């Protein structure tokens, strides 16, 4: 059985006219692993996540997720692939005029989950992220930190096998950051593969997981896994 979840081989992404966001970047992430991508703004962290989620195709190189070559994936296979991935975007990508519950539920609705299961799951996540009192609040009325937590809740709602989080703690206070990291750890312990792009050193400084440092679209350092 293939134990690799993500395999990027010499992936290059060049945005027009000639901006190289990623150059010859290789990364292998095993199933059930948690990996941190770090680096300054513009280092290429978000681009890595976009390539893995299939939002952007690589200009060159190979991107394989769960054994599937994304560059050869047929259009009709994309929805099923994306339903298995939960992504918390840096800009949240929430619908401002929908309630918190509706925004989180969307991830499960596209998989045609039954409405009762969606309701229960949404309530469970809101409780975990201490947002239960915001159930019926429109997301435009939330603070940035609250919006970020809603985006994270939506990313994990559908029990994805792969969770991608782009600066998930960028707008959070230390207490909420700990809450979110606890949630990720919980999913990681349950078997989900998690890749977190962040420049917040606090969340990985004592980690036992791999930390990859990027600069100018290239991998410049890999911190070995610390033994617990």
């Amino acid at each position, binding site marked *: 059985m293939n134990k690799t979840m993500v395999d990027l081989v010499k992936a290059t992404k060049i945005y027009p006219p000639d901006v190289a966001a990623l150059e010859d970047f290789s990364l292998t992430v095993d199933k059930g692993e948690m990996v941190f991508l770090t680096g300054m703004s513009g280092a290429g962290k978000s681009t890595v996540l976009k390539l893995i*989620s299939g*939002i952007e195709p690589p200009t060159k190189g190979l991107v394989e997720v769960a054994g599937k070559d994304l560059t050869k994936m047929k259009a*009709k296979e*994309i*929805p*099923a*692939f*994306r*339903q*298995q*991935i939960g*992504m918390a*975007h840096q800009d949240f*990508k*929430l*619908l401002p*005029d929908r309630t918190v519950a509706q925004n989180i539920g*969307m*991830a499960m*609705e*596209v*998989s*045609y*989950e*039954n*409405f009762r299961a969606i309701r229960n799951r949404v309530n469970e996540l809101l409780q975990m992220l201490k947002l239960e009192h915001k159930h019926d609040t429109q997301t435009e009325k939330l603070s940035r930190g609250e919006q970020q937590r809603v985006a994270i809740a*939506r990313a994990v709602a559908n029990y994805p096998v792969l969770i991608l989080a782009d600066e998930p703690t960028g707008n959070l206070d230390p207490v909420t950051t700990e809450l979110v990291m606890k949630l990720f750890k919980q999913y990681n312990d349950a078997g989900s593969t998690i890749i977190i792009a962040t420049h917040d050193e606090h969340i990985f400084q004592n980690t036992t997981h791999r930390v990859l440092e990027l600069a100018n679209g290239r991998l410049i350092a890999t911190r070995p896994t610390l033994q617990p």
Partner: protein
Amino acid sequence: MKFISHVLTQTGRNLQKTWPTQFMTLLTVSLSVLIFAFFFLIYTNVMKASEKLGDNLRLTIYLEDEPVPEMQEQLKKKINDFNPVEKVLFVSRAEAFQRLAEQLGDDRDILTDMNPAFLPPSIEVYPEKDLNSLARIKVFSDYLATLPGATKVQYGHGWVERFHYFTKLIQLIVVLSGVLLILTSTFMVAYTIRLAVINRQAELEILRLLGATNSYIQMPFVIEGLLQGLLGSALGILSLHLLYRWIAKLFSGPTFLNLFEFTFFAPTTIGLIVAAGILLCTVGSLSAMRKFLRI
């Protein structure tokens, strides 16, 4: 089942968000159906009346002299050879006089001193029911005028002609209102769906990122078009029915409308109009999606 309930929920949300535009489109579709159905109703009733006209059509050939029995047979054969007819009736001078006297009733005294042979003999031709086009009646009448001894052919020419042109006019209006219906239904629905797609671009983008299938994204728009067609045409037909009942009530009693048996559409026709409305609006919705919803 889950797919249907999710798509219907999504459709409900969309309608809730875009109801003012949807309502305006619904009114436009209803109005178009009402206009088309109104003229189509008149047309179907006029056609029914024209069939009745065919039933009662009689051409009278006035003759110089009464034909002898052999001549009568010859004339009958010539008429049937040209156009098969239901009945040919020879009316002698004496029979014509007798008929006139009966028509005059109590005033028949005025005929007392008249010569019973002053009326011309005639042949009454009752064509078959299929002779209901003005052009064919004219050709037949022209032929009858050439029969030996014929002086004149009468069949209420002016009235039939006017009725024929009226039928043609209604036919033209039905076609034009049909075109109007097609244009308004298709384009209005397409325009509404286009607006909805543009307004919901951000939402559609998020749905795609979350892994929504094409059918999950497209079906609500198709259902919106279908509902516009169903409700719009049903509302149009209902309005026409109310109008029909109001007019029927208004003109009940001895009025000119009672000369015709004016009836409403049969259930099959109603079903066909509603089906056409649904089809047109769905086509409008599909064409808008094909143009503006890139998946």
